[in-house]
């Protein structure tokens, strides 16, 4: 069953005279429970693609369906409603609210869904345990490390069991240890909860944690790689090779 389908997606900025086309007709299909990474050089349009798919930005042309809803037909208010219930977000700069504790930050999406307090606490306990942040639940964001912040952000994305999770360079600001820690947790959540994840990254190592990698170049889909049954290490080598071809620069890994 496909969770996300986008057809002939176009996005351009600027006015009539000075038009900049960022997305030039992209078709994407993501199945339920998939962990898809999107890679590409800076300026290739990968973040724009994520923003458009996640309804934060509006597409100029094309249609997007998520979980059977046509996003491109929705008005702003309905979109907000949809994001609230069906989407989860993880950002590079965490986007936690400084004035709230870890627990309050994580519970935020549940408060609008009118989830009961008891159930909210139960869910929090489970997800916080899985991500190893239960101990720091009463701390404020400026009292914890970057890795812990990103795991808090991930917990917030998962807690209301959204149909789809969008992650924009989640490991961008983390050291490699914290990064692989987070990615391991994401993979296990992906498997345990059959959560669908779409992640934008420029780090081949991060991308190798997913089940499929889509390469974007100049606003168009360049190619895609499936992990299949191969090991993560082998998949990583594949990604490296493709990236080398894509950018014309050979990485020395």
């Amino acid at each position, binding site marked *: 069953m496909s969770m996300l389908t986008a057809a002939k997606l176009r996005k351009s900025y600027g006015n009539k005279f000075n038009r900049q086309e960022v997305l030039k007709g992209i078709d994407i299909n993501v199945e339920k429970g998939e962990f898809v990474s999107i890679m590409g050089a800076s300026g290739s349009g990968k973040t724009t693609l994520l923003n458009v798919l996640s309804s934060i930005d509006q597409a100029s042309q094309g249609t997007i369906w998520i979980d059977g809803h046509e996003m491109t037909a929705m008005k702003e*208010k309905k979109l907000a*409603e949809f994001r609230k219930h069906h989407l989860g977000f993880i950002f590079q700069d965490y986007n936690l609210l400084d004035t*709230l504790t870890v627990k309050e930050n994580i519970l935020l999406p549940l408060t609008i869904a009118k989830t009961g307090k008891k159930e909210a606490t139960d869910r929090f306990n489970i997800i916080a345990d899985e991500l190893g942040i239960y101990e720091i639940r009463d701390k404020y964001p400026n009292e914890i490390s970057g890795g812990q912040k990103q795991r808090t952000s991930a917990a917030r994305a998962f807690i209301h069991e959204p149909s789809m999770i969008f992650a924009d360079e989640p490991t961008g600001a983390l050291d490699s240890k914290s990064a692989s820690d987070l990615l391991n947790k994401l993979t296990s959540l992906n498997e345990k909860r059959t959560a669908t994840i779409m992640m934008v990254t420029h780090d081949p190592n991060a991308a190798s944690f997913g089940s499929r990698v889509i390469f974007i170049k100049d606003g168009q889909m360049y190619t895609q790689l499936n992990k299949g049954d191969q090991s993560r290490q082998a998949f990583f080598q594949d990604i490296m090779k493709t990236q080398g071809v894509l950018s014309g620069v050979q990485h020395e890994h």
Partner: protein
Amino acid sequence: MNINGLITRNLKKNLKNYYLYVFALVFSAALYFAFVTLQYDPAMDEAAGSIKGAAAIRTASILLIAIVAVFLLYANSIFVKRRSKEIGLLQLIGMTKGQIFKLLSVENLLLYFSSLIIGLFVGFAASKLVAMILFKVTGVDEVASLSFSSQALVQTLVVFILIYLCILAVNGLFIKRQNILSLFRVVGTREEKGKRISIWEVLIGLLGIILIVTGYFVSSKLFGGDFTSMNELFAAMAFILASVIIGTYLFYKGSVRFLFHLVRKQKNGYLTVKDVLSLSSIMFRMRSNALMLTVITTLSALAIGLLSLSYISYYSAEKSAQQQVPNDFVVPNDQDAAKLKQAFNAETIVYEEKRIEVVQAEVNTSDILSTELDETTFDADKMQMPVISDKSIKGMNLSPDDTLFSGYVDMLSKVMPLEDSGSIELLGKTETIPQNYIGLERDFLLPYTFTSGGLPTAVVDDTVFNRLKQDADPALQNDSSLYIGLDVTDESQLDKANDLFSKVFNNPAFSSVQLSQVQTAEIQKQNMGLVMFIVGFLGLTFLVTSGCILYFKQMDESEEERGSYTVLRKLGFTRGDLLQGIRIKQLFSFGIPLVIGLLHSYFAVKSGWFFFGGDLFTPMLIVMILYTLLYSIFGILSVLYSKKVIKDAL
């Protein structure tokens, strides 16, 4: 691009951002110019009346300078801080501090003086309106005319140039003290967020509330008779001031945070978006703005309190004139009475005459005085009171043992309350007549010239009165022992009667021999009207400036919270959701200082209002409601600004 280009570009952009700063400038300049124009207006002579009035206006204009200067400096510092990043950047690309200072100064110069010129025009136009209001409240019959005073213009220009120089100096210091790094950091370090509450803060919070409540409690006891000597009274007042002001500071420092912490704890992490935007944000911000909020609260309390008191006095001018002069006209002797009556008859004005024979006697009231008074300030054994016979009052008949008191002014009755009954002694020159005191009536029977300024009149049986009259102590008696009052029967003839009264006795307004009720009320209105006008003017200035400061603060906060808005909107909260939270937040940000200020002024007014007049609630509520309405405009403006920020956040 050279520096000039940079300046014009900055100006263009700033004008949009700083429209309120411009508004504040225009407003202050207009207000000040209007006030000073008034000061030099020849038509003012009558309204200002005495030297005292002129002195009051001059003092007010100095206070006005202080308020305006502090406000403009504060507003400027907010805007410079906001641009600290830009200043850092300019330094980074190699501009010297001197060049940056020049850039800012020229920019400021253009902004400041163009606003000043607009302000002068507005102020000139408004000065007529202001003069009209003043003449209305003081009851002066002058036609307000638009008169330009070059003296006023020069004074305004000098004051504002001085303020501009101050601003330059402050900016210069700010730029000089900063290095590139700290300039980038300035926004971040100003407010602490995300810190947990400590036991210490809980204690401070509780202490703040306790101090405020103690202050209120003592203030309600202030004139209740517990503090009798002047020294005790002053000590009590100083204590109230200190405990309330320190309490307010601690309240902002700890109590708000502590109270919100309790609410938040109870929610156990389950915060809705409304709570996020209101509770959690205010918790941290109140604390860092504690000093500013304390100043604003204290000064608004002061403004509201003074306005209420002067309005109480103005409002009850007629009532207190009735107490001071119980009949329409009071004349001291038969000669004057005959003159006035002759004039009235000539104009066919119908009147009634009231004659009361009065004996001044000392009365021993120590038994019925509810409070122990300090012997040095007042002697309860020998209180000098006017005594009249029950025959003088229609329909009153007392037994020879009884004495009734009538007409005790509010102020004295609060300071020296009387028991409902008891025994008193009337002291003649030789004999002492013991009497039963049977109560206090509200009617005022004699003018203040007979009652030592407001003591009650003792009404006794005719026989007792005659005994006392025989035995009267001549040293105590007034020039005349006969009170003659005239009442005009037809209300519509009262104005004419007053004109005649003025004509018959030359300029009786300032005499204390021949009295007219209407004129007494007018004089009080004129005096209090001027006070009220000045206090109102200062109060309005203060209201607008403090409102603007809070608004600037909120503008800053909205900008700082833009990131949070973005996160929340990405998470799927609609603009409406966020706006609800913002409304609650502004309700608290503006409401808490307002409510505390209102409470402070309420208790202040309540402890001493009776010195000023007879009505408490109507005039006080009118002042408070007006203040609240004007003040809430700034709250609404803040919400509108946040609305814009939220809209742009995604």
